[in-house]
């Protein structure tokens, strides 16, 4: 195997990883702060993709306008996140996990059908934004500029989220809410508003990743369920609620998937599930997580 071949596998794995991180970070954030497992997070991702496609149709039917469309899609999903949090999720905090799973699973079904109703079952696609349509040559391989962009935006978002949580007043409030909601409330903070904001951020990230995936993957019904399983594996590997755990969990997932194909061709997902099983046996709370 030549070095350039290995490098191109590595870049493929990294692209998968950074997409997964964008999606899983929101999932991990909501679990970390509110202790709610949101199965519908993949549905927000799917809606982000459909909305981005729709916005491109409205803005520039001939193509272009991608960045504005992606932003609109992410904001739209963020607003939907606020509505679902205010109306439904609020009733689930502190309830048994079973209720949360049942409710969010119901939301998966409803949103999945709504998408089919609105956009049909055909594959939809969005063209790559012109500025990133080219490619560059690195180590004798051809890398599309768009995947380079994705590989760069993952760490950028991880770092921004980390800064936000660890170095700002708002982040300190969020961490305090995570540790003791009732105490923070008794100190005068409107914790319900903090929860809504975190949920909005999580939905925004899901919508953004859905929009950003459209130039390299077609939009199809079922993409919601497919992605949520992968995002869960990442979050479980990294440790529930840990931002850097989710980041490194994504990187490991992407690389194991990318190189696993070389070892077990035709069983690409096998190596990922095997990895998850091993990690769950050795560290049931994930690589960066803590025993609950």
């Amino acid at each position, binding site marked *: 195997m030549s070095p350039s071949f290995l490098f191109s596998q590595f870049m493929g794995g990294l692209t998968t990883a950074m997409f997964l991180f964008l999606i899983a970070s929101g999932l991990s954030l909501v679990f970390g702060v509110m202790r709610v497992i949101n199965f519908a997070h993949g549905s927000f991702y799917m809606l982000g993709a459909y909305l981005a496609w729709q916005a491109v149709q409205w803005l520039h039917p001939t193509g272009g306008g991608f960045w504005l469309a992606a932003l609109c899609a992410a904001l739209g999903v963020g607003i939907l996140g606020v509505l679902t949090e205010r109306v439904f999720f609020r009733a689930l905090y502190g309830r048994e996990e079973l209720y949360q799973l049942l409710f969010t699973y119901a939301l998966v079904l409803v949103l999945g059908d709504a998408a089919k109703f609105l956009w049909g079952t055909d594959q939809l696609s969005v063209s790559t934004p012109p500025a990133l349509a080219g490619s560059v040559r690195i180590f004798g391989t051809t890398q599309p500029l768009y995947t380079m962009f994705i590989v760069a935006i993952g760490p950028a978002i991880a770092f921004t989220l980390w800064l936000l949580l660890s170095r700002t*007043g708002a982040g300190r409030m969020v961490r*305090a809410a995570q540790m003791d909601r009732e105490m923070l*409330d*008794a*100190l*005068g903070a409107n*914790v319900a508003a903090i929860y809504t904001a975190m949920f909005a951020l999580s939905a925004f990230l899901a919508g953004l990743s859905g929009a950003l995936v459209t130039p390299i993957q077609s939009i199809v019904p079922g993409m919601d369920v497919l992605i949520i399983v992968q995002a869960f594996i990442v979050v479980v590997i990294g440790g529930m609620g840990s931002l850097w755990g989710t980041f490194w969990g994504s990187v490991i997932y992407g690389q194991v998937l990318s190189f696993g194909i070389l070892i077990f061709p035709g069983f690409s997902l096998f190596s990922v599930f095997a990895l998850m099983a091993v990690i769950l046996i050795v560290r049931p709370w994930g690589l960066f997580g803590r025993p609950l």
Partner: protein
Amino acid sequence: MTAPPPLLAIEGLHAAYGLSRVLFGISLQVEAGECVCLLGRNGVGKTTTMRSVMGLLPPTGGHILWKGTDIAGWAPHRVARAGIGFVPEDRRVFAELTVWENLDVAARAARRDGKWTIDAVYELFPILRELRNRRGGFLSGGEQQMLTIARTLMGNPELLLLDEPSEGLAPLVVEALLHNISALKEQGVTILLAEQGVDFSLALADRVYVLEKGRIRHAGPAAELRNDQELRNRLLSL
């Protein structure tokens, strides 16, 4: 002219945890500048009274008048922003946040300006300044108690609810704490204190309510209990 209403007046307060009733018509008052103590053993309803005032346990009956306004059933953050600060008995510092972060979060939460700034609470508890970069979870019990009080002060409360501050602390630490709370009292902070320890509470309180099984058994000046050994035995030695 009518006299201004007391800072806090609780009238016929009933409260319950599910089906188990805890308070049976508690009535008490706290005037500005006073230190009032709720005295009684474990499980008589001291904590429940405080949690009801704070909105952490909505009362099942009665009124909680804050400067004449009924705040019964308000959300905790509204009660806090109205000027009532709560120091819970189990301390509940934010364990992963540093001492400074704990104080900063409290100031942001309450959004009430006043004389209590981070420097002012460091003045009251100099040890907190030294430990400012240590995480709350790594403090000793006494240090955590100081941090909890300091944290609540950051919201510049007009009334401080102190729930069993001496519980579980070594005698020397209790003495230091007594000194700190006396200093607070001298600075004009109004305090409603819940205590099991007779010596601790009588050293601080102006007036005392003795609670028994969710009712007020005795109300009177602290001096009365301090001087009357027989009364003290009758009320508290059971």
